[in-house]
Each structure stands twice: as C-alpha cells, then as structure tokens.
C-alpha cells in the first residue's frame, strides 16, 4: 500500500457511500510524501500523505511508537522531514522555524512554565508578539474565561490540579488566535472521568472557535468521540483515514479491525470472489460468504472480521441469506445492559458475542451447543496478517 489515504478516498468514491463534507479537501494542512528517519536506517514515518481541511478535527490514532508524535513534531517544526513537503495554507513550511509558524500546541505534560503565573504563561505568546499591555490583559482574561479558569490568573502552575493545568495549556495554545492547534496526548495524564469531561470541552471549543485541530492519541475511544476524521497509524503508515463510524463499521484491513473496538477473527482462504461476495473456506472446513475488503485473488489467505454485536443467537433476527455456524458456549457473563458470551467457533475459542439484555433471553451454560449466525455483509474478509 503506497498511498493509503488516496487509495481509501478513491474506494469511497467508487462506492459512493461515505462521502461527508468534512473530507472536502481544501487542504489547509497537507503532508506530501513525507518520510522521516532519525538514525538514517529506519523510517519512522513512511510516505505520509495527508490532507487536513480547514476547521477539521483530525486525530492521529495508533499504538505507541507508530510515529504519531513524529508527524506532529514535523508539523510544528521541531523535527525536519527527511523527505517530502509539508504545507500550511498552501505554503511550504519545511524551512520555516517553529516560532514563525503560528501553530498552537498542547503538550502531553502541558509544559506550563513553572516560574510564571498562569496569567504570565498566557501573556507570553502575546508579549513575544509585542502586543500592548491592555490588549494583552483583555486577551488573557478572555482566554481564561473561555476555559472557566478566570479566577486562577495569579496562581502558579504547581498550585493547580491536573485538569486545571490542562485547561491552562489549552488556553495558552488558543490565546494568540492560532488557526491550527496541535495536541499530543493532552489528556493522557488525567483520570478517566476528567478525561471524558475534557474531551467534550475540547470538542466544544473546536466547534465554537472554528479552529483546525490535529490531535494525537492512542486511546481509540477518545479518537472516536472527538474526531471528524481519524488517521489510524501503524508502523509509520496511515492504515486508514476515515470518519469514526466508517472506521468502526468498515475497517479496511485487519490492523484497523483489531485496533478499533472488539473484533472476532476467523482464518480462512478465498475460494472465489463475485462482486460484493467472497466465498471463504475457513481453516476448520466450513464454507462461508463474506464481504471482500482488501482481498482480490482466489486462493489468498484471509482473516474474517466480525464485530461481537453483529452476531446473533436469535435466528429470527437474521436475514434469509445469513450463514449459521456451530458454536460451543465457554463462558457467559452478565454485564447489566448486555450479556457477553465467549464461544468456541470454528476452532477459535476467543469468539465473543454481545447481546442486548432484552429481558427474554435465557442464560447460556458453559458446554451448551448452539448455532449462531450473522449477515454476510458483516463478515469482512481482510488481509491475513
């Protein structure tokens, strides 16, 4: 795969299904064939092509070490691209030093200057821009009010809680009216509840101010709730670039399917492909039909990916062409709103299904033999890796 992003967009055009106006490609920020190597031996970022629209909230999601921070640092100007071009608003910024890029940045550890008060921290970008005192104070006040921290201007960062520091870092990145704001795992140090709260606040600020945000996280939940589009990184490449619902519903390769949400996999080999239907011979011998995503050739190894909530025990809910398959119950867990059942299916004993607690289901016992099924469209035939 040389050019994931473009390949993906073509595919979507072909199907004509998932176009959203968010992806309208006016290219406020573009990465053009960008590569990065730190040591001259390994490419940390391999051929990155990415176009971010004005006002978009784009998240770079991926496991640790996949090159997200490196991409962000190249955009901010703290690392230079080994190859390729980065453009901001149509202008190449490869040779513009960081302080002239006018990009706001929120660091993971906030990087609030400990020897300055909160207000001084916020005034800093305005001072270096030689702004007058009155205007400065007005802006600082506005920015503090924006993050509901108006009363804390006189405090030192060390006197604030983690969540409050986070807000100040946010305010500081916004106070000089940057149009583009980068955030590198800004919520990573907060506890779960605060993190979820801040996710919404950041999202609201983004909508309210109309800024463009490039957000880095390794937390898929965060990526899905906040973003207009998500770029899933692995091994220095974008594996898929799509709006959250596409990412979850229609993963384009097995890495994305595994990385986003829970996922059942069954190994097999393609027998034949006809349009939107692929016949797959599972390793256990059954023949099932699935939706071919990135498989093309009969005889190719494939991984079938099925979301747990798309598997039905109740056959009446299944469409007529659904495929039924034998399963043995291994574990049944009551989780309140749902039941989670672990099964052995076609030799895979980590096969999980989730069923809604609708009041009429019965408790399944370990060892029980049942038949389960799914719609062929929900079984996605992906690459075998």
């Amino acid at each position, binding site marked *: 795969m040389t050019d994931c992003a473009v390949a993906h967009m073509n595919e979507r055009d072909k199907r004509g299904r998932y176009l959203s106006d968010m992806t309208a490609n006016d290219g406020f920020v573009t990465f053009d064939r960008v590569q990065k190597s730190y040591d001259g031996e390994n490419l940390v970022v391999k051929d990155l092509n990415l176009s971010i629209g004005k006002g978009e909230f784009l998240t770079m999601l991926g496991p640790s070490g996949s090159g997200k921070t490196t991409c962000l640092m190249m955009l901010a100007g703290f690392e230079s691209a080994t190859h390729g071009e980065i453009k901001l608003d149509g202008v190449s910024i490869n040779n513009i030093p*960081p302080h002239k890029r006018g990009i706001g*940045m929120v*660091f993971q550890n906030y*990087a609030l200057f*400990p020897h300055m008060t909160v207000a001084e921290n916020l005034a800093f970008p305005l001072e270096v821009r030689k702004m007058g005192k009155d205007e400065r104070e007005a802006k600082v006040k506005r920015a503090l009010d924006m993050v509901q921290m108006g009363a804390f201007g006189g405090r030192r960062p060390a006197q604030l809680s983690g969540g409050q520091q986070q807000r100040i870092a946010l305010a500081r*990145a916004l106070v*000089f009216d940057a149009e583009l704001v980068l955030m590198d795992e800004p919520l990573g140090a907060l506890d779960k509840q605060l993190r979820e709260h801040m996710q919404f606040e950041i999202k609201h600020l983004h909508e309210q101010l109309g800024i463009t945000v490039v957000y880095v996280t390794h937390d898929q939940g965060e990526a899905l709730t906040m973003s207009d589009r998500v770029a899933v990184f692995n091994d220095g490449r974008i594996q898929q670039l799509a709006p959250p619902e596409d990412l979850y519903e229609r993963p384009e390769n097995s890495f994305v399917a595994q990385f986003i949400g829970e996922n059942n996999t069954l190994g097999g080999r393609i027998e034949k492909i006809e349009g939107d239907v692929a016949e797959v011979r599972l390793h256990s011998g059954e023949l099932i039909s699935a939706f071919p995503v990135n498989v093309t050739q009969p005889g190719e190894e494939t991984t079938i990916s099925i979301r747990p909530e798309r598997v039905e025990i109740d056959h009446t809910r299944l469409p007529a062409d659904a495929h039924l398959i034998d399963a043995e119950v291994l574990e049944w867990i009551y989780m309140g709103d749902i039941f989670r059942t672990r099964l052995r299916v076609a030799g895979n004993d980590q096969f999980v299904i989730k069923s809604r607690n609708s009041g009429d289901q019965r408790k399944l016992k370990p060892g029980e033999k049942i038949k389960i099924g799914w719609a062929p469209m929900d079984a996605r035939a992906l690459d075998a890796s």
Partner: protein
Amino acid sequence: MSSTDMDTGPVLAADGTPLKKSLARALRRQKMRALMLIAPLLLFILITFLIPIGQMLLRSVDNEIVSATIPRTVQALEDWEFVEGGAPPGEAVFEQLYEDMLIATEQKIHTRLGSRLNYEMSGMSSLFRKTNERRLGRFDLEEPLAPQFADIDEDWLDPEVWFTIQSNSDTVTAGYFLAAVDLQRTPDGIESVPDFSAIYVKLFVRTIILSVTITFTCLILGYPIAWLLSNLPAKSANLLLILVLLPFWTSLLVRTSAWKVLLQQQGVINDILVWIGLVADDNRLALINNATGTVIAMTHILLPFMILPLYSVMKTIPPSYVRAAKSLGATDWTAFWRVYFPQSVPGIGAGAILVFILAIGYYITPELVGGTDGTFISNRIYYHISSSLNWGLAAALATILLALVMVLYWIYDRMVGIDNVKLG
C-alpha cells in the same frame, strides 16, 4: 456530622491519651533511630572537624600566655598608668618582674612570651631573649632592680614596652583581629598600621574579587558545556562527562605546573600569540605569576564544580518547555532567556556557591602561579600557620574569612533564596 466532630477538646487516641502526645511518642522512637544511624558520622565530624576548628578559632582571641608567664608583674602593673613620655613603673613592678622572670627563665618559657609580645611591638622578642637566666643570676638584690634591668636592655625603662605588656595582660585579646584588618592598638587608641605594612585588608578584597571573577569565568565557560551535556544522547553525554571529570584524575600539582609551562612568557600560549602576530615578540603577555595566572589556573581547576550541578539541574528541565515557548512564537533567544534560563538558576546558584567557596579558601594554586599580586588571604593564613607560627593571627584571619563567607551566603540567600539551590 457526629457529635465527636463538634467536640472542641483535644482529640484522643484509642487508649485515651491525647492524640498529639501519642503521635509525639511514636515519632520520638523514629527520631531516636535516625539519630543512632547518623551517630558514628556525627561523632567523627565532632572529633576530627568541629572541635579542632573550634579550638583553632578560639586561638584568635586567646591571650593567656602573658598573665600565665608573668602573673605577679601583671598584677603589680594594674595601678600604673601610661603617659606619653612619662615614667616607667616603679620599683615594686620590677621586683615582681624579677620573681616572674626567674621562674619563666628556669622553665625556658620567657622567649615564647617575647615572641607573642613581638606581634604587638617589635623589639619585644629580643628584649625577653636577652633577659635570660644568666643575666638575672648576676642581679644584686640589695640594689634597686630597675637600673639592673636597664643594664640588660634600655628598653625595660621604655613606657611603651610597659604599655604593651599592660594592654595584653587580659586573658582574651582583640589584638589578632585588629592586626588582621590592618589596625593596631597604640597608647592613643586604635589606629591603622602604617601603609607599608598594611596588607590584610588588601588581601581580603583581592581574594573576594578574584574568587568572584573565577566564579564568573567558570559560569561562562561551564554553562554551554552543561547545556550541551544535558542535550546529548546518553552515550555521548557520558563520554563528555568523563572528559569533564578528567582533571580530577591528575594531580593538582601536575596540572598547575602544566599551566606554568603553558602560560609563561616563553611558554606555549605566548609563542602561539607571537606566531600568529597577535602580540609583539618584545611585548609578550604576562599570564603567570600574577592575578591573571591565578584566575586562569583556578578556573580550570574549579570548572567541574560548576558544570556538574548545572548539568544535573539542566537534565531535569524537559525539552518541551523550550519547544512550548517556540511554538508560542518565541525566538531561540527569547525561549532560552525567558524560559530555559530561569529554570537553570538553581544550578547556577549551586555551582556558583560551590566554586566561590572553594576558590576563596584555595591556596596551593595561587601560591604556585599567583606571584605577588595573585595570592589569596589563605596563602597568608598558611604562612602564619607553618612559617611565622603566629597561630593567633592565622586564626583571626580564618575567622574573618569564615564570617565573610557567611555574610555573602546570607546576602545570596536574601537575593536568590537558598532553597533555589539544587545540586541534583
């Protein structure tokens, strides 16, 4: 809210004792244990460091020798009063002096008293040396004693001699301290010593000025190195750190001698400067045996003490601060000056204090490369301890030096705040 919360009396522990008291009891055992752990070191420091130094410093005021060697004379001299050009004390005093000197000469301690009083007035040493057992033995006790003392030395009739003895008859004296700041006690009160013998104040001032200079050059040379060290990858940083510490592995004398070779008028540095034409051959720079030599050699020797604290503080400054500053629009210089530098101040404080305190007490290097105008007050202290054996004056000088350091430390605390100092 439960009723116990409303209770205003002292909070009680489970067994009914006040909580404060049982907490104190619990903590006391912890404290005792901690004390036991440090006891050996404490004892060691006490015996080998605090007590000797305390005793040494006490010598700066100790003056027991006069009243111990000639106790009767001192007592008899109490009623006598010095008048410019007036009379020496009466016969009674000389009788007591004879008694005292008989004992003192027998014990052979009279010369020590002479040396002691010689610090206050020259000529006293020979006066007491001349007044020996043999001469005293020839005295005719039927005759008045004063003229017989005068036969030994005319000075015995000099009222100034007697003034010196009288004014030093207390068991404590301020004389050493006065001498240490170029003052002396005269019959007319306290006066400065004549210009040609006034050296100590000048030396103190020079010591401080040179130490401050050395501290500054160390800072200017050390700061970029420490910065580089803290920004290099760990492997190269360790290598460089070893190079920084390399000077510690060679003897101080070897290094100082190396500087002599490099810096002398026909030395390597002058040769190079002449060769590239920066200085004329007949106008070679005097880089050694003066203050310049001291500053150069001491800077070299003390540089690691500046670099190490700086390095350990800089290593804890996350690079994201400077990055944040730049992303907010600061130029490299502004980011450094407004964000990085203030956070490295604790390291500067620690390094500067360390270097300054080490510099102010250094004597080997100034002795070897300092010539006459590059020596420190410690060279003088060393001289009085080992050559002139005027330990009282050495102790007074050392005490003043200690006080000076304390005062500077206090000023520093006032200006920078001592809790702003971080060694790591």
